[in-house]
């Protein structure tokens, strides 16, 4: 019997949906095994179609995107109820993702910036979006824009995680195959990725690390063979899970950490502080500060994809 499935996007960019399509002709194999009952980016279903399903009727739902507003939360809860297996697909659902960096700001400062201050904004009346407004006698409703971005598992119970921004299509396929074959690991596992660090998967040559100057990718053309971190580029390989096939590394771009932390690591970004401090050269405080000063915005660099999943989660109000 064919499985029943759904794919949804919360607060995300749609890249994960596209990554599902990027399995190319293999999507036909997926379609042979599973009927999709819900996929807003590709098919015309309404929320009421999902509401009309029996609880637990969907065998598997892939939820990508973070939970950033009340619509995301409402649909996350609805899909949890309607599905047997709920999978967090991609870095936003898994760790909060890029948009999770909004947690270093507040709802008010974000709205002020977006609707008032950006160079391309023209809003002389200072109009802000309202949850309720009346137009021609009709009441309109918008979702509530939250102060804090959350990961999917901070809102509902999640069965599995497929990491990545976006996940490698082949890894999505591997994870779906595991679902079809009933070969899933224990609940709560990360699927479609390895268990070691990216450094273990990285093909570059690694030697003793003693960094005396940090550079940004735009400031140099890196040696094609040597470890990028040894060349002074901030590479999150030491604190990031393998499984992507070192896509960025092979293109000369240091790892930004989208596959998330390893098993048992509480906080990927804070772990990077630890890893990085071990491999810089100087011992005197002034020299240490001078080298570390070369890291532009360490917090967002280390927590690029994982702010909502980090220990402190957001700026204190």
């Amino acid at each position, binding site marked *: 019997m064919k499985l029943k499935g759904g794919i949804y996007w919360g607060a995300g960019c749609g890249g994960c949906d596209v990554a599902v399509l990027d399995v190319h002709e293999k999507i036909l194999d997926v379609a042979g095994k599973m009927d999709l009952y819900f996929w807003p980016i590709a098919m015309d279903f309404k929320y009421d179609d999902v509401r009309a399903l029996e609880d637990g009727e969907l065998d598997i739902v892939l939820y990508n995107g973070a939970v950033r507003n009340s619509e995301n939360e409402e649909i996350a809860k609805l899909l949890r109820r309607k599905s047997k297996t709920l999978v967090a697909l991609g870095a936003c659902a898994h760790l909060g993702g890029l948009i999770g960096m909004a947690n270093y700001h507040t709802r008010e400062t974000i709205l002020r910036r977006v609707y008032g201050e950006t160079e391309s904004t023209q809003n002389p009346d200072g109009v802000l979006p309202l949850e309720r407004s009346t137009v021609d006698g009709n009441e309109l409703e918008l979702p509530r824009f*939250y102060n804090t971005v959350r990961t999917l598992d901070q809102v509902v119970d999640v069965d599995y995680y497929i990491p990545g921004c976006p996940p490698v299509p082949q890894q999505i396929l591997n994870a779906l195959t595991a679902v079809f074959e009933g070969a899933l690991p224990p609940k709560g596992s990360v699927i479609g990725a390895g268990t070691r660090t990216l450094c273990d998967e990285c093909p570059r040559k690694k030697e003793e690390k003693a960094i005396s100057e940090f550079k940004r990718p735009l400031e140099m053309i890196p040696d094609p063979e040597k470890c990028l971190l040894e060349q002074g580029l901030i590479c999150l390989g030491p604190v990031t899970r393998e499984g992507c096939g070192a896509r960025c590394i092979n293109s000369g771009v240091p790892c930004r950490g989208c596959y998330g932390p390893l098993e048992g690591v509480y906080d990927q970004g804070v772990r990077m502080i630890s890893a990085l401090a071990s491999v810089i050269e100087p011992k005197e405080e002034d020299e240490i500060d001078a080298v570390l000063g070369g890291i532009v915005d360490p917090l967002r660099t280390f927590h690029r994809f994982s702010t909502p999943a980090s220990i402190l989660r957001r*700026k*204190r109000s």
Partner: protein
Amino acid sequence: MSFEPKIVGFLCNWCSYTGADLAGTARIKYAPNIRSVRVMCSGRIEPTFIVKALYEGADGVLIAGCHPGDCHYQEGNYKALRRYRLLKRILPEYGVEPERVRLEWVAASEGERFARIVDEFTEQIRALGPLHIKESLAEAMKDDVIPHEAHNEGSGEAHEA
């Protein structure tokens, strides 16, 4: 009620914990606010320990290790220093005062110095006030609810009343 700072101290086995022990055997009085955790080396102190201590309710964290050049494992204290310098840079962006985390070198013979540092640090944290990470997180998220669900809950309560 007066505020008594909760301070977690991570002390290296070879120098600072021995120094704290000396303060004890020498019967030097110092602030009782510190909860000491003995680790083998200041280089073992992951920034994760510090951040987690702050999250779990510590108002301040003291890291103490051997003086530079004296590390039992050669380099551990330099690693601790680098981690500390980097951690201090990111704390303000979470709204956490960097002064809440402090690194000091305390030798095995420096019982008095240990006592003085704990006294000073306790007063510094007392002046900063409580941190309350979990409470401020809950405060920041109190309006992050589905409006009509909150509305329904509200009317339910009203009905019962």
